[in-house]
């Protein structure tokens, strides 16, 4: 199959782009395109699409640049607000899940009854004895306080953010 193409296709395209094709174009290029299948295609398609582009660009109902800029700023600000609110919600959910897990463990220990209580108290006494001698006791107290107070703090923060405006 013969290769469909001509080395002058680009010349025809550029002639259209610069407005030289046609009456003001050199006749030699015009005559060549009339007899060359590839260049004739280029001339036909370029003329059709260039005319369509001209008409569409003239008719394009685009909003003013200032309006577009203002809308983009507004949307970016709203997205930033939504992202911030999502971050707080995720952190709160994580804290609540942790508190719930610890509560389940404690309730489970309590439900073991007297034997469980005895075991728990022995374990707790051993733990406390170990922790008194190191820095872990203050850390444990801090963790317990955080677990207890964090859900309250998150709840307060979420009610401050409120729902969507």
């Amino acid at each position: 199959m013969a290769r469909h193409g001509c080395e002058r296709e680009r010349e025809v395209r550029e002639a259209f782009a610069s407005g030289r094709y046609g009456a003001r174009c050199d006749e030699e290029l015009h005559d060549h395109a009339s007899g060359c299948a590839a260049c004739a295609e280029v001339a036909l398609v370029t003329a059709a699409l260039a005319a369509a582009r001209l008409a569409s660009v003239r008719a394009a109902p685009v909003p003013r640049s200032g309006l577009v800029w203002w809308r983009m700023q507004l949307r970016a600000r709203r997205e930033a607000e939504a992202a911030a609110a999502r971050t707080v919600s995720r952190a709160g959910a994580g804290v609540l899940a942790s508190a719930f897990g610890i509560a389940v463990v404690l309730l489970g220990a309590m439900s073991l009854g007297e034997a469980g209580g005895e075991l728990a108290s022995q374990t707790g006494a051993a733990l406390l004895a170990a922790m008194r001698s190191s820095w872990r006791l203050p850390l444990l107290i801090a963790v317990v306080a955080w677990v207890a107070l964090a859900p309250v703090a998150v709840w307060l923060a979420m009610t401050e953010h409120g729902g969507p405006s």
Partner: protein
Amino acid sequence: MADVESGVVMLDAALAALRGRAKADDADTLPPMDEDAFRAFYERTARPVWAYLARTTGDDRAADDLLQEAYYRFFRAGAAHASEAHRRNYLYRIATNLVRDRARKGGGAVHVALPEDGSPAELPGDPGVAERFEKANDLGRALEQLKPLQREMLWLAYAEGSSHEEIAEVLGVKATNVRSLLSRARRKLANLLGGRRG
């Protein structure tokens, strides 16, 4: 009040992060766009981009929505560009992806209606050829019968005058394939327009 102020500071920082990702010390790239630069860029490109969206989707209303979305994504990316042409190609790439996303979501059949102002647009230097397309719907009907990639490629090449490299960059195809794909698309459109010779 302190919480409100800290919240405003946080939002401003988030906006700055959304906008200014271009490296200020990179001398090979254009600086990030401030309002004036963006508005000037928009004035230069909005109409051609709208025309591209309208002719590849076949839907003027869709083009209105996609135009704003394209500029917002362009703005939000805050990407650094080596030149005005590179910036323009990036915008067209965003627009092309939006058109394709819309088509994947079943965004309606393509009906490429062209402005029916009753007269063909004047083509500088060749009013005779323009008259052959007296009814703009002839081209619209022909474009409808092309594949989306063919419409996009033909518009970029012959309406926008993009090079093969630019077309490859915008459409996400290999530059070495553009010539053959474009040639096939052009032949098909020419046949549909009924002007093929030989």
